[in-house]
């Protein structure tokens, strides 16, 4: 069956359907990631069983607490986009490969489509929207404009978030290091040359 919203987990099984059908086994904090993605032994100690129905959770996004009510199967990307209207987090590939939904979670660039919303309760989530306001424009945004690392702009916020996170963690990074580190984002228009220059510039400012 060809479904528009395809399930890619193999015949008759997907992570989303599994969690929906069985109730999600979730442990707090970082271990929740392991419960989903990690090796088998990490999945053993399920400390809390929650129902598949809607839950009210509080997410810390761009410096503010936000309450949302969602089922455990709902991904962070969908909560950001559909519940909080933070649509700079773009849904492009539907399989965690293009980086257009990159946000910062506790300072690290993460694809928002690889986290369930309920997993990131208690973590600090930063989206591209917070990097520009009438009062202040982040250096990454400024550098993207200077080097015209923007065309249609659809992949750009994800790239901006990735660059922000990378530069914070790698002050003074070389151009080669930027090139190696930013391979997680796809741009179709072909802005890579500008992105590379913008990333390098930003990394030098952080230094």
């Amino acid at each position, binding site marked *: 069956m060809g479904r528009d919203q395809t399930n890619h987990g193999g015949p008759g099984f997907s992570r989303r359907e599994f969690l929906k059908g069985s109730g999600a086994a979730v442990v707090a904090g970082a271990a929740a990631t392991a419960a989903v993605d990690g090796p088998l032994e990490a999945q053993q100690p399920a400390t809390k069983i929650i129902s598949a129905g809607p839950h009210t959770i509080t997410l810390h996004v761009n410096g503010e607490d936000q309450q949302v009510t969602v089922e455990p199967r709902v991904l962070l990307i969908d909560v950001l986009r559909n519940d909080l209207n933070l*649509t700079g987090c773009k*849904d492009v590939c539907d399989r965690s490969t293009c980086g257009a939904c990159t946000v910062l979670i506790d300072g690290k660039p993460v694809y928002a489509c690889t986290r369930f919303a309920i997993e990131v309760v208690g973590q600090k989530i930063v989206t591209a929207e917070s*990097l520009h306001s009438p009062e202040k424009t982040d250096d990454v945004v400024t550098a993207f404009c200077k080097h015209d690392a923007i065309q249609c702009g659809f992949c750009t916020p994800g790239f901006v978030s990735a660059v922000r996170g990378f530069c914070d963690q790698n002050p003074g990074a070389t151009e080669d290091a930027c090139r190696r580190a930013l391979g997680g984002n796809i741009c179709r228009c072909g802005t890579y040359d500008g992105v590379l220059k913008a990333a390098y510039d930003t990394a030098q400012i952080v230094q």
Partner: protein
Amino acid sequence: MVERKIGWEPQGSHTLVGGEIQRVEGKVKASGQAKYTNDINTPGTLFAKLLTSPHAHAKLVLLNIEKANAVKGVKSVLAMAKVGDEIRYEGWPIVAIAAERPEFAEDGLRAIEIKFEPLPHFVDGSDLKGAIEADMTVDGQPLKLTKSMGKSGRGDVEVALREAKHVHRGTYGIQMITHMSMEPHGSHAAWDGENLNVALSTENVSGTSGQYVQPVGVEAMNVNVRCDFMGSGFGSKSTVDEWDVACAKLAKATGKPVRLMLSRTTEMQIGGNRPSAFATVTVACDAEGNVTVWDSHHWGSNGLQGLTVGLGVTPYVFQPKNRQSAATGIATNCSPERPWRAPHHPQACAYTQTALDDLAAKAGIDSLQFFKKNLDLTPLPHIYGPELEIAAKLMDWKGKWHPRGAGAGNGPVKRGVGVALHTWNGAANQSNVMLKVHSDGSVEVVTGSQDVGTGTRTCIAQVAADTFGVSMSAVKVSLGSNQFPKAGSSEGSATIGGVTGPVRRTAQQALWKILDLVAAKYTVDGATLIARHGRIWSGFKEVCTWKQAASLIGPMGMELYGGPVTEDEGLTNHQVGGVQMAEVAVDTETGVIRIVKLVAVQDAGMIVNRLLARSQVYSGLIMGIAYSLSEERIMDNKTGRFINANLNDYKLPRIGDIGDLVVEFYEPESEYKRGVIGLSEPPVISTGAAISNAVANAIGVRVPVLPLTPKRVLDALKGAKG
């Protein structure tokens, strides 16, 4: 005296036009605050998703949507096909569901009962013999898959072949690809009484409202189309598609706003299709390397329509005196063609200029010398000649070229260089603008055009600000609505010329009216006045500020309308030329190709914005790297499916794959004076041929089919060894 003549200032005299100006919407785009169609979440918006066909050819024998209607959160289910329908390609839309949340729409899709009776399919556009022999039907009637697209030619190929010194015969090809727009096709539709308000991801804001009339049952005057930001289309987004119609119908049925964007897989399957082309070519030259013969037959597929690359671009740019070409189109069970950036040119360039490069090698002539020697066979030798000189210096062609496969070093990695050239019409589209000068000196420009990423807003603001001598921030540009003055579709690199021309003319006319008011008020000779740096000057003497000048208009402001440009105004023109050179490193053990350096030298008449123009050329080069090295719509003839219709397996270059990109504009006064000519399409055209030629130079054999995947490289090397 300042001559009052519609047109651009002499080269070097503009203050903003031609400069490196950052895009006006840069910050809102970079920070994700720009709202694309895909992002519109007006209160109560429902999310719609599609059920599509997994089969390339099948009859729909069962469709029951009742259970989907009962699923929690599902608000409306719309059948887009009916039992008995013949599905003719994978991804064919069958049902659309609108629900309160995306996950509920998915639940609804799972509840649909559906059955197909698969029918024989054919999806391999490279297989001419298979297409001729295929036993296919449509609606039970026999269907012939191949059809002649005619022949063209002149001179006497047979005689010229007998007289030629060097003759080369080869087979070449370039595979089908898909547009892969980052923002998928789709829309957000909301009804307000009789009015249908649509946010549509489109390159054709002014031309789409009428397409809703018949299928939705609405009057054109009641359709409002908006597109503030567009997440790329490359030619694929100029129509209202069946899923957009479904979106409007679901909105009507539910009384709520509905957003329906294609999923990534469906987007790749049906959102765009660039035809494949495969060619057998015979080329010949005399002892000095003058090309005398072109003889080709090419075939390929653009999906259902059964066409391939046109004869009009075959052979590409070089037109030997004796030439003949024939083409055969193949109908395949793939979604229909949509124009892909410089339609048909990259393919024709690839099979033409790789064949010519092989002939150069056979004649033992340096490829660059060979191309230069034959420039009189092209329409633009006066452009290509100087461009090739510039490119050769930037590439250090002399230092890097070597006879095929004879580069230095004994290791497995071989380096080589290649060259190719291209042309594009790029004439301005038909666009109207409204320009308003307010009495406080601020300026508004309004047009029904769109900014698809090329910088339409910025270029308009630049031209208006430059003409009035004010800063960019004094100009507000509004576009992206069909309520604004009608403007042409953004296809064929027609937009920047299409909008800057009318803006310049209208701004000049407005300025002259204001200068006349200044002349009367300050009793100076109006013919001496110019507007610069926020002031009005008579020679070197300041007469008044721009704000004082604008205040003379009166409180109603001044509103002027400007119609489309014509080339005799000197604001725009058509036909540009560009050349590209590639340097590659090929690992002969793994077949992996690395781009070391690409050089692009491009003519585009008068450059409006150097920063954004350079971005267009980078963009062309990078999309060129994609279809040259890795990007391919892999159609599996056994299952009929596009087996890599996802971004894991549809290989696009990433930031580390692009090498050193060098962009140079060829803008001598002779070309500057022609005015603005489209730039977006040309730089994507010759990248494929240049890279393929560089690979042949590196490894000594031709890898005949693009993309040059490691397997194809290794196969070519193995074939050469026998």
